[in-house]
């Protein structure tokens, strides 16, 4: 036997024992990522199958970069229908029956809260990307839950500050009367006031869901605030903005401040209806070369441009898998320790740190203005970046957090 052959044989044997050793540290020899998402309802376009695809891409990239894990990471996608009870049941089913090691995505705050509660009792890591409520890192926080991309505080802080500083210092705000809307209204009001702005009249709670907002738009017409702030989301937001344009408020000099805006809302109504509106987002596909590069890969694989939610699911999945590699085990307590305080920087999460005390993932976020169609340079080019809020300033300061593990 010549020397090269012998080296190759020895190397193979070494690799073999290495992966055998690794298999012992993975509880059932595999790492399974569970994408708990909306596959059929209102959020299925912004998360849904695209989120599942993003997680699969992360799994493949991770296995390619970490040969020891080749063939060991798999992804399943499950529909929670945006319902809290379904989300809880599905989370339990995925953990008990499909042996998932980690849950990711979870649009709709109530569904996310239900799912993380189950994950906590079963000691499984949950990375909430699309759920918005700050409760996840406050009164409802737990050792196994991480809040990844955005939250109500970050939205309000970003948009309230940007709009008020640009001269939009007199607001009239309406919000849908349920947990998400009430929370976002509180945060937005605080952000406006902290920056020297004021509310011309107390915010109005509107029924949820609601189609007709004309009463509030007429009220805005007579009050003449500088900014009409809407905390509505999804289809309700589409209705508000449609009617805001119909009543000609923009021409009357009343600007539009939006609490939560998704790429899909802009697509549903057309860019021009939203043009000039200011919102805060954790990411957009044409932010810079790194973002574009990943977005191009995603578009090739999925046939559509990624939303920030889908990009966030990739990033969260990858961050989890790398923590497993660092901990050399999928034991959730060890993985949590590997995640806590971890600093990293990828195409999605810039200057990111995972805050150990409440598991808020801090990252740079962007305040953006919607471009008119004429300003767009290419398909899907919808945002002008006004400012980037550094990770340290974008989220609720630790001093204000009510989280106690």
């Amino acid at each position: 036997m010549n020397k090269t052959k012998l080296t190759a044989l020895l190397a193979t044997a070494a690799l073999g024992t290495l992966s055998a050793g690794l298999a012992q540290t993975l509880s059932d020899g595999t790492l399974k990522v569970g994408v708990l998402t909306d596959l059929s309802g209102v959020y299925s376009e912004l998360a849904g199958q695209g989120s599942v695809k993003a997680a699969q891409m992360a799994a493949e990239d991770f296995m390619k970069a970490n040969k020891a894990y080749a063939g060991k990471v798999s992804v399943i996608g499950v529909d929670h229908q945006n319902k809290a009870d379904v989300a809880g049941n599905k989370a339990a089913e995925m953990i008990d029956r499909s042996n998932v090691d980690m849950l990711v995505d979870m649009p709709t705050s109530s569904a996310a809260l239900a799912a993380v509660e189950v994950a906590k009792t079963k000691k499984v890591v949950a990375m909430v990307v699309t759920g918005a409520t700050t409760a996840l890192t406050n009164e409802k926080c737990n050792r196994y839950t991480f809040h990844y991309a955005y939250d109500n505080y970050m939205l309000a802080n970003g948009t309230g500050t940007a709009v008020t500083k640009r001269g939009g210092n007199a607001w009239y705000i309406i919000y849908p009367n349920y947990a998400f809307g009430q929370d976002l209204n509180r945060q937005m009001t605080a952000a406006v006031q902290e920056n020297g702005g004021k509310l011309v009249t107390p915010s109005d709670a509107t029924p949820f869901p609601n189609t007709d907002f004309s009463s509030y738009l007429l009220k805005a017409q007579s009050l003449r605030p500088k900014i009409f702030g809407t905390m509505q989301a999804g289809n309700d937001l589409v209705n508000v903005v449609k009617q805001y344009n119909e009543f000609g408020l923009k021409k009357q000099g009343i600007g539009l401040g939006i609490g939560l805006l998704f790429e899909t809302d802009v697509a549903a109504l057309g860019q021009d209806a939203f043009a000039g509106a200011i919102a805060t987002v954790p990411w957009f596909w044409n932010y810079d070369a790194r973002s574009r590069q990943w977005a191009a890969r995603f578009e090739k694989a999925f046939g559509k441009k990624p939303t920030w939610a889908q990009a966030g699911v990739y990033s969260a999945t990858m961050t989890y898998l790398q923590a497993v590699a660092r901990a050399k085990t999928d034991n959730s307590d060890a993985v949590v320790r590997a995640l806590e305080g971890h600093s990293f920087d990828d195409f999605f999460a810039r200057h990111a740190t995972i805050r150990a005390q409440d598991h808020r993932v801090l990252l740079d976020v962007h305040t953006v203005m919607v471009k008119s169609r004429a300003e767009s340079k290419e398909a899907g080019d919808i945002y002008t970046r006004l400012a980037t809020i550094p990770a340290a300033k974008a989220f609720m300061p630790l001093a204000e957090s009510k989280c106690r593990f």
Partner: protein
Amino acid sequence: MNTQLLLIQVFNGLVNGAFYALLSLGLAVIFGMLRIVNFMHGALYMLGAFAAFALGQVAGLGFWPALILAPLLVGALGMLLERGLLSRLYGLDPSYNLLLTFGLTLLTQDLVKQVMLGRFEVSSAPYTTPAALTGVVNLGFVVFPKYRLFVIALSLAVCLLTWFVIEKTRVGSVIRASTENPTVTRAFGIDVGRWVTGVFGVGVALAGLAGVLAAPIYSVEPYMGAELIITTFAVVVIGGMGSILGSVVTGFAVGVLAAVGAAVYPPIANTLVFILMALVLLFRPSGLFGLPEGAR
């Protein structure tokens, strides 16, 4: 709340009132003449909006042809449903047609959703106001969208026309005769079945028309009729089941009431109509304009 703002809201309420009136008028015509509780009315309203979107914006015909064609299409679909499905249940308890129309509603909503997601990948269809009616007019006491004024005017005209045809013309008397006493009417050589189908078609076309009118104002999505239909049924109950005049007057009145409610105390806006319905049922169970049971 000052008087000017109150006046503005009263006026604004007429717009929603116009939709309630058109929808409850269709329900009243169908129930009054055929004794069918058409739960599918909201889904047909939604189909009207989608037909307007498909014809006007996707096929490029524009708003005006769609305004005529979409209700005709919805009406034709309604007639097919009446002939093919509903007519088979006439001898049975009314709960059968309620269940049938409820099932058809779920089916229609899901079908439209599948087509929507497949074609546009968003949950609502982008729809714009017709060019001629874009913009606002200053009415002195309020700056109001032109298009909404058009909605009020057109639906008022259609409601009046429907009432006139049914109550004052020969066609109307034949319809009423066909439904009050089919046997005698048949003896005069009138094809009752055909008239029944026609009436159903007209009632359903009114829902289609409301849908076309709604497309530029509300987001066009598969469930847009689901919420509206509940309020509309309340309107029908308040006005008196089957009363043409009652449905129109109550429709506009409820619209105004909800708008004023939304301005004075927002949380109550959506509940107001049901409080009113409870009161009416308590003191006048046959509705404000309905005749007591047995007087018919």
